[in-house]
């Protein structure tokens, strides 16, 4: 038995399990009845994404994707496509849509994703330099060393429109020009791999999957600005990424792609690792430099910018992992090609760590200009458990909350800024109806307060004050004045803090006050937490009309505060209830309510 054709039927959560099973059965029946079961296999798969257009069916090896397929469509697809090789156009996914997105001429992908940064992840063995070379690895460095002058590299970068992927989105070519133009005997290239945003792992994945791409880019940067030494500042919490980088550096040195006289060009460049030690503030350039210098990672005022006076007082280019990983591709394919992807102001792709209450959490890379709806509902498969989307947070503790009304905004640096958030490094956290906005605000502020280095008063005192106000509100002791205070302190922090940590720390709260004022009002005026997350504002009670007296809740209550006899209505003693929610969770009759 050798199958030649395969009908892949999506059986993912998003389509509903019954629907997927029925569809699968329909295809199996149809294939059998038509006598095609000798060379065609029907396979039920995991979720394919595209849940808004689900269920989907894919025919292999043709790679044809059918969307919104119903069991009744099975006959037509089997008869027309499987037997006679004629695709059913009315159900076929319109590839024009993705072509518009990537704006890649001749593109035939139905995928919403386009991988430039992660181009080799999933293809090469990250511990093999030969694998990297086989996929054009170090070809960009070769081109830069032998065919391009430093100003050509800058011009290409400028045309590409590449902007820093670490958060603020400063044009990369400008940073390089600043450093290039300062005369100095020593200059340095630093790769910022201190991925501090909790809930983000883009850089870790890039380094674990394709470490050489970053080494190659750093050497290109070194050649362009005139630096001979590079440092990768990486979180100590990423042991596998560190190990793979160490292997990569050793291999590159062996091949003479790092070290003296690279490829016989006369250019010397080497790279060393420096480990971070868990300080979010070290994402700030000047703090990062202090940390590499072996000191407490405290920021200093800018200017002078590190591009002019950085590591050990020398001109220093600092780029993050994702920014660097783009560069070899830009050098090989040209700035024009890169600039053709994305939006008017934001070029190329962006990697996101899509997590939270989404069905298919994943590491994704999409062209700039993709909408949140496409990311969360098409790629991510929607919200877990069929719950309602509430908000998405980009930019981690420095970003803001984006409500459902803006799901169709094309994502780029400017559009996110206009919504009160930031692009950030790529954390994308999805929240559903069970998440409390005020609680999430408090979570992020607790983080920034704890991570504040304490050097400047606005951040040290202001952050703490905001956190205290939020704590008060989540306890049900908030007043309308507290909200005004939050705004005033927040704006002061944005203006007066020394570094990015303090300047962006109020973003989550300010964006929430703008997009979710009703959540604050509920906590302050009604003393209610709509998501039942803030325990001081929640009471659990039993609905007499639904309780059948099964005693299950009473048996699960850890503090024995539920009374009632078998087959009699039970009652929760609110005074002794610790609000653990066990009764709510175990009740099979929805008789336990909260609010």
């Amino acid at each position, binding site marked *: 038995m050798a199958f030649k054709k395969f009908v892949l039927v999506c059986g993912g959560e998003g389509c509903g399990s019954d629907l997927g099973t029925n569809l699968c059965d329909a295809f199996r029946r149809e294939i059998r009845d038509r006598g095609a079961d000798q060379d065609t296999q029907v396979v039920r798969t995991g979720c394919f994404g595209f849940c808004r257009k689900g269920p989907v069916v894919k025919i292999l090896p043709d790679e044809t994707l059918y969307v919104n397929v119903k069991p009744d469509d099975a006959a037509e697809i089997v008869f027309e496509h499987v037997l006679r090789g004629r695709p059913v156009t009315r159900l076929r996914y319109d590839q024009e849509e993705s072509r518009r997105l990537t704006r890649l001429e001749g593109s035939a992908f139905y995928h919403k994703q386009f991988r430039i940064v992660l181009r080799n992840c999933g293809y090469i063995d990250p511990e093999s330099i030969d694998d990297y070379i086989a996929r054009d690895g170090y070809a960009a460095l070769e081109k830069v060393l032998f065919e391009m002058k430093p100003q050509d590299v800058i011009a290409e970068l400028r045309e590409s429109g590449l902007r820093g992927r670490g958060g603020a989105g400063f044009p990369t070519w400008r940073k390089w020009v600043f450093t290039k133009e300062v005369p100095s005997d020593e200059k340095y290239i630093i790769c910022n791999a201190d991925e501090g945003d*909790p*809930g983000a792992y883009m850089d870790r994945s890039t380094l674990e999957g394709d470490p050489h791409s970053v080494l190659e880019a750093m050497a290109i940067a070194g050649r362009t600005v005139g630096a001979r030494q590079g440092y990768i500042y990486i979180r100590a919490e990423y042991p596998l990424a560190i190990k793979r980088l160490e292997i990569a550096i050793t291999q590159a040195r062996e091949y003479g792609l790092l070290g003296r006289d690279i490829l016989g060009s006369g250019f010397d460049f080497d790279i060393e690792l420096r480990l971070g030690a868990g300080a979010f503030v070290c994402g700030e350039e000047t703090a990062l430099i202090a940390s590499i210098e*072996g000191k407490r990672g405290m920021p200093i005022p800018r200017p002078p910018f590190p591009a002019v006076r950085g590591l050990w007082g020398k001109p220093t280019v600092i780029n993050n992992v994702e920014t660097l990983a783009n560069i070899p591709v830009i050098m090989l394919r040209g700035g024009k090609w890169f600039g053709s992807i994305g939006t008017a102001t934001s070029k190329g792709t962006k990697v996101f760590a899509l*997590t*939270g209450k989404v069905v298919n*959490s994943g590491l994704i890379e999409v062209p700039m200009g993709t909408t949140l709806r496409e990311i969360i509902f098409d790629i991510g498969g929607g919200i877990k458990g069929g719950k309602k989307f509430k908000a998405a947070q980009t930019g981690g503790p420095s970003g803001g909350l984006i409500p459902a009304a803006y799901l169709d905004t094309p994502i780029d640096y400017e559009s996110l800024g206009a919504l009160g958030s930031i692009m950030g490094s790529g954390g994308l956290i999805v*929240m559903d109806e069970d998440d409390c906005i005020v609680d999430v605000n408090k979570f992020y502020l607790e983080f920034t307060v704890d991570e504040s280095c304490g050097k400047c008063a606005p951040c040290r005192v202001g952050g703490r004050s905001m956190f205290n106000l939020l704590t008060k509100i989540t306890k049900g002791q908030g007043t309308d004045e507290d909200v005004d205070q939050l705004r005033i302190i927040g704006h002061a922090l944005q203006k007066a803090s020394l570094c990015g940590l303090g300047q962006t720390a109020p973003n989550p709260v300010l964006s929430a006050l703008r997009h979710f004022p009703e959540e604050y009002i509920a906590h302050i005026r009604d003393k209610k937490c709509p998501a039942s997350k803030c325990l001081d504002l929640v009471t659990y009670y039993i609905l007499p009309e639904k309780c059948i007296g099964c005693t299950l809740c009473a048996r699960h209550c850890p503090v024995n505060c539920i009374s009632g006899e078998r087959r009699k209505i039970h009652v929760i003693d609110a005074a002794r209830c610790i609000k653990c929610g066990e009764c709510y969770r175990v009740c099979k009759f929805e008789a336990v309510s909260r609010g």
Partner: protein
Amino acid sequence: MIAERQESSEGLTIRPDDSGHSNAREKTEGTGSVGTEKLTPELTDFIIRWRDKPGNLIMVLHRIQETYRYIPRAIAFQVADLLRVPLARIYGVITFYHFFRLKRPGRHLISVCMGTACYLRGAEDLIQELETLLGTGLNTVTEDGEFSVEAVRCLGCCGLAPVLTVDGQVYGRMTKEHLADILAKYGGQSLSAK
């Protein structure tokens, strides 16, 4: 020479400052004794190799914590000596960064990820349950010295949230119900039975 140094440093005994901002208070052992740990020959070699490299202190501290699982006080004195930097600077660096510990953790170290994805998917419940099972809170050691629990920033395994690690081994897609079994794996039966 090391002994002299210790004596002279006793005068500037390091105490957490009261500014309330640094997390030094919870990190320090609070005892006056210096301890008896001696740098191993390998560590001494490592430090000497790094001695003339600029910015060496953090790399050296990483190596020490890798060996001892925390930075013992006696070792800090010896590092100060070898690197020729003031002890105060070493202490300043240790207390600034979350990664470094001044206290010996339990034999098995449980790290619960408190990154955003894990938080939203119930990491707090895991910490509470561990507290109930072990009878001790965050950043403390159980009476028998077997376990300690810490909350960490983000382990970068958000796809598996909520996540915790025991001695570096990652456990993903955790629920409260899994915890007793995991503790049992590390010899914690008696505790989980309590």
